[in-house]
């Protein structure tokens, strides 16, 4: 089927070009600058004429490189480690959120049970809670209450073997950050997936049930494959938040569980900003989302419209 395209006024194309430059320009600028030496960035030898160098990336990734770059004496930026932390936290929390979220969404759409309205209303309400509001309680709870007791059996055992305070808290662990990310993203995922599950024809599920499938089999073998686009969209949004989040991670992580956004902010706030290296780290952080956008833009747009229109 050939679609006919209308011919447009030249000014129209000019406008489109301008818009594309505006939206992609800053990203491109960062990309280009990440290949420049600080000297080139500051002197501003205009535009595209410069000698590209991967030195910034070498500085950023110095803790995971298999060779030692010549220009660095001391590897102070532990970017590789932070990247791995980010990856672990974002991936695990995405998977958990999706599994738990789609089960809950399915229950909310397909079953009438006691407390259903309360649950769905609560989900809708907590969607608007900003991370900043969670900062204080999460900081307090994760540090003081969500701990293995120092007098208890396991806590005591750990104190005897490893020494230290004796109580082991969620703060400073990967699981602590993952827990809050899963909780934070669940309402949104449940909300988005509901609108996809509603569209699955009930007759299919009933047919499977007649053939003797249990409720979990129906869910995993019939419903899940049919809502793949919805799952993809939800996965991307969850990953995006878990990957990009700064505030809660900075409150909960310690030296070994730092994520990339924390590392970037810490390096920014110093006085003498090394633009090249910062841009390189920023670019590395931006790469996974950019890849998603390029390959799954249709799912993202579907998810966005489904999420907003089905209030």
């Amino acid at each position, binding site marked *: 089927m050939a679609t006919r395209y209308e011919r447009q006024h030249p000014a129209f194309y000019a*406008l489109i070009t301008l818009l594309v430059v505006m939206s992609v320009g800053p990203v491109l600028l960062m990309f280009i600058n990440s290949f420049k030496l600080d000297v080139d960035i500051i002197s501003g030898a205009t535009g595209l004429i410069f000698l590209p160098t991967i030195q910034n990336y070498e500085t950023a990734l110095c803790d995971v490189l298999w060779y030692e770059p010549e220009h660095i004496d001391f590897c102070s930026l532990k970017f590789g480690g932070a990247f791995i932390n980010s990856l672990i936290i974002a991936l695990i929390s995405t998977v958990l959120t999706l599994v738990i979220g789609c089960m809950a969404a399915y229950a909310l759409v397909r079953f009438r049970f006691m407390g259903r309205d309360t649950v769905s209303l609560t989900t809708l309400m907590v969607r608007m809670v900003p*991370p900043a509001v969670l900062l204080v309680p999460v900081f307090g709870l994760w540090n003081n209450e969500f701990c293995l007791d120092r007098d208890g059996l396991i806590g005591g055992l750990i104190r005897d073997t490893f020494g230290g305070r004796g109580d082991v808290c969620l703060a400073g662990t990967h699981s602590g950050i993952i827990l809050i990310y899963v909780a934070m993203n669940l309402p949104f995922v449940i909300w988005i997936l509901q609108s996809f599950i509603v569209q699955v024809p009930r007759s299919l599920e009933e047919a499977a049930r007649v053939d003797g499938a249990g409720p979990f089999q129906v869910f995993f073998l019939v419903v899940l494959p049919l809502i793949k686009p919805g799952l993809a969209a939800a996965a991307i949004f969850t990953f995006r938040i878990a990957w990009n989040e700064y505030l809660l991670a900075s409150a909960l992580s310690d030296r070994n569980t730092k994520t990339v956004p924390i590392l970037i902010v810490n390096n920014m706030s110093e006085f003498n900003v090394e633009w090249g290296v910062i841009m390189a780290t920023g670019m590395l952080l931006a790469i996974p989302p950019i890849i998603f956008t390029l390959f799954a833009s249709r799912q993202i747009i579907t998810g966005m419209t489904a999420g907003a229109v089905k209030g």
Partner: protein
Amino acid sequence: MSRSMANRFTPYMFMAPAAVIMAIALLYPLGYMVWGSFRDWNPSQTIGEAEFVGLKNYITLWNDPNFRESLGVTLRFAFFVVTFEMVIGVGLALLLDRDIRGMSVLRTMFILPMMIAPVVVGLMWRYMYHPTVGTFNRFLDGWGLPKIDWLGQHALGSVIIADIWQWTPFIFILSLAALQSLPRSALEAARIDGATPWQQIIHIKLPLMMPVLIVTGLLRLIDAFKVLEVILVMTEGGPGLSTEILALRISRTATEFRELGVAAAMSNYLLMLLLLLTVTMFGFTRWQEARAARIRAAVEEDA
């Protein structure tokens, strides 16, 4: 027998993990925060050791000029951001709602800014706004124009521009989707009756899109109160308090001033504000569904 038992418990089994996690890591912390907001609480104490001070934190905040300033900045930021984004986003959607080649590529490029980490967005804009090295001032300099002190005198405006860059595409995509799902018959009828493009937009397209636009606007408004990282990286709330939005102030009160009780009370103020917006949105969707049903019934009668 056991089968029917199993069926009765099925929904709870599906719900349980989500309910447990949300109860432990969202609802309990929120309750804990409300409780903590009535206490004089610093990070080295557990909440039990902190002294109960009643409404003192709330009253102190209410009389604190810095808090008010911060609240004002937040409201101004949210208002301008949403207004500009709605106008630009909807305008672009109306303009670009045509069958042109490569529309999907175009949309992909437009959603790019939204997907990138706020920290990175802040970093890019901080570079571009840089007084000497930055792109904008270099551009102005190259044209012989006076330099602008972007993140100094005009900090709030600059921060707003960065947010508009990042989030206008959201409004654009949603209003384009709304536009393309409008009933073709109404537009066709208007065209046949000789309505000019302007008349079509004002009398047909915009009114029909309005429900989606209002929900989109409210969603964006709620999200505008969540913005933090972009501003943190660009200005750290400064100069002075000129860009210190509430979210940033909460985090500074908790980490720098080490007053968890006050920060909790501030979080509660913010939460109440957002609750109001959410309830508005919720009420509006309900009202609009009822209205749509009525209109549909009326149309069917006419036909």
